[in-house]
């Protein structure tokens, strides 16, 4: 019983921490003025953060780097980049990427 309560409290604390991170700059804006270079640097944030999450997801499997052209995720990822670049369509990118991955996995089995 006490162990379960502790788990719930830990989750609650994680939630509060996450919420405060998200609220941080929204709450202090106006009271603290942001320099121009800072706002400009911020436009690079989503590109950097999401790329840093995405490439390991494509290249690393079972804790090992798979850079071979036989890595179906790499091939599907490359095609998905081209689709995203040409169409700028999120749905098309996901659909084509998944289709190629599943096809390659089926063929290579």
């Amino acid at each position, binding site marked *: 019983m006490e162990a379960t309560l*502790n*788990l*719930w409290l*830990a*989750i609650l*604390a*994680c*939630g509060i*921490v*996450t*919420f405060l*991170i*998200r*609220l*941080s*700059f*929204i*709450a202090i*804006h*106006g009271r603290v003025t*942001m320099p121009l*270079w800072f706002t*400009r*640097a*911020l436009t*690079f*944030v*989503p*590109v*950097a*953060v*999401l*790329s*840093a*999450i*995405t*490439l*390991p*997801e*494509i*290249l*690393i499997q079972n804790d090992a780097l798979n850079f071979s052209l036989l890595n179906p*995720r790499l091939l*599907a*990822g490359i095609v*998905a*980049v081209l689709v*995203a*670049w040409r169409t*700028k*369509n*999120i*749905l098309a*990118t*996901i659909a084509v*990427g*998944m289709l190629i*991955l*599943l096809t390659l*996995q089926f063929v290579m089995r």
Partner: protein
Amino acid sequence: MTSRQEFFAGVRAELPLQVGVVPFGFIYGALAVQLGVPASLAQAMSSVIFGGSSQFIAAPLLVAQTPALILILTVFVVNLRHALYSASLAPYLEELSAWWKILLAYLLTDEAYAVAIAHFHQKGDAQHRHWFLFGAGLTLWSFWQASTAIGIFVGAQVPPEWSLDFALPLTFLAIVIPMLRNRAYGICAIVAGIGGVLAFGLPYKLGYIVAAMVAIALGFVLETRWKQR
């Protein structure tokens, strides 16, 4: 646009991303239960924390009886990128009441941020723009709750050959590629990606943060330099 039009524009912009979010939530739910997290707790994490990557990391730590302080620190590090989203959106939300700020901060995620910042960057009538973020955030929230619940109940029956987890990097690719408006952003993305791979071994997903910081600094410096010429 009226507040209602903004709200539904946000919903519509967010809907295509659910193709990536739903498998992600589904896999999270399935994984958490397989690890031995009680169903109620696994679902509570989706509404209390509401941060996919951090929930993935937290689930095995919970079962392993990790000390609460380490668990909280881990979630803090994984979700630290939201501080950067918060800073990026803050100028657009400064006129709002405290309650609006609290609500929108709670709903601030990668996917809601991605569509909102693209919308906010467009010129035009800005009066009801926060409703767009609310519509996008609420849409993502609803799909996230539903997909993790389905994952918790039926996730164990889906064969791993379906590779549903690949939908997540595909979603992020689809968000990032259109943002690469000049060479500086392209180099920033490549450096961040390679950095993420190289630093993958660092504990608690710290590698992402380090790689992203280096790439942001580099992209910023390159853009400044190329603009001056």
